[in-house]
């Protein structure tokens, strides 16, 4: 099992080191050939406009779409969620494989970035998951067949799953809690 972490920009190193701590092989992916040998893909947090532009410039959009369509697990955290969503508002979408409508910078600017504990039934029994939201996007609406995994207490959707696709508007890679990484890897088990 080998997981690629898209390493164009953002917090890719944290995902790689979390996976390695879990005993999973992981490598940084910057070019299409880096995706070819991967069983799954994580698109990390960072700036989605930057990641989207670099992905286009080096012809990564189509290979990522192929991985998603082939049923390989693909997970987007924060910016990665924007990269995977079919609808990101006024701008054209990037990989556009997941039936969610995402609103960028939904909670405001950096001074509004926050931490909160989330109940995530899919992770099993408590404790809650301590989630870190950095200039985070939210999921405005979901299509049919999407499983909502976590909501803030005002009902805002912040994590969802559609078959092999997983998105979170927060950053499990910035914590020491591997439960979301395990949920992602469960697709390969």
């Amino acid at each position, binding site marked *: 099992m080998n997981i690629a972490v898209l390493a164009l920009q*953002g917090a890719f190193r944290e995902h790689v080191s979390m996976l390695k701590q879990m005993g999973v092989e992981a490598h940084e992916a910057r070019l299409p050939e880096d995706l070819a040998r991967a069983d799954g893909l994580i698109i990390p947090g960072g700036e989605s406009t*930057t990641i989207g*532009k670099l992905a286009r410039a080096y012809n990564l959009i189509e290979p990522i779409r192929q991985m998603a369509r082939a049923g390989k697990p693909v997970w987007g955290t924060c910016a990665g969620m924007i990269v995977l969503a079919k609808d990101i508002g006024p701008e054209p979408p990037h990989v556009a494989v997941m039936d969610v409508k995402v609103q960028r910078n939904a909670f405001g600017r950096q*001074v509004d970035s926050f*931490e909160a504990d*989330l109940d995530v039934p899919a992770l099993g029994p408590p404790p809650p998951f301590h989630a870190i939201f950095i*200039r985070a996007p939210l999921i405005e609406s979901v299509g049919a067949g999407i499983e909502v995994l976590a909501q803030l207490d005002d009902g805002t959707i912040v994590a969802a799953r559609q078959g092999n696709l997983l998105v979170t508007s927060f950053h499990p890679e910035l914590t020491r809690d591997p439960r979301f990484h395990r949920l992602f890897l469960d697709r390969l088990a």
Partner: protein
Amino acid sequence: MSNSSNGSLPKSTGTWTVKVGLAQMLKGGVIMDVTNAEQAKIAEEAGACAVMALERVPADIRKQGGVARMSDPEKIVEIMAAVSIPVMAKCRIGHFVEAQVLEALGVDYVDESEVLTPADEENHVNKHDFKVPFVCGCRNLGEALRRIGEGAAMIRTKGEAGTGDVVEAVRHARAVFGEMRRLKNLRPEELMHTAKELGAPYELLKQVAESGQLPVVNFAAGGIATPADAALMMQLGVDGVFVGSGIFKSSDPARRAKAIVMATTHYHNPGIIAEVSKGLGEPMLGIAARTIAAPEQLAARGW
């Protein structure tokens, strides 16, 4: 803030984790100096992961002289409205009211910067007082850890801003990383003396000695003018780069900006760096940092 119909805890904002967290998201990226909304859009279009709003780029500050201060808030707000990427802005060293103003405007990061004329020649801003995160410059590990001790959530080398000469950024990055490597070989009882020698807070120095890492993200700044300069700094071990005058003082800013972004991502791939470096037009003319008289050296500001 929000409480709890389904058992979740309230949100906490302005924490150390979210301050450091934004810098984590900027890693592997290029932060570009811009002076207006139009330049900010060019930077965003080129793939910048953030922009730094300022009144004059360092090369102009150097040329024109006078007192360099925080930008006009109107300009900063214009830039914030023009782009969706994070917007940083500079305050003078020790000028905590400029910092308060920038926080009130809602900028995403404050750079307490030696590029502006210092407002205090002994004390920096107490950055723990703020919800907005701060980035500060450093020339060595002691200076980096003093700033982190004051609450900086991100560090950058100072380099020598406005020169287009990368030599000082290299010197500062090598100093920081070299001192970190040296710490690894010290015995625990030698750390206090080293803390004294470097002028670093003991607890932070101990943390770096044990973990082998800085507790915050570390970018390069000051003199980066070409894609190869950016990749050089990345290969030396920084997490990302700031480009100041290097872009908008060159002959084709949009193209050069994009090329520097590409070289920063593919910093270990000389083939790509060669490709993106072709036909970029004239880089900024620059001044050799070595020829700048001591009183004109921006890097010497900061204590």
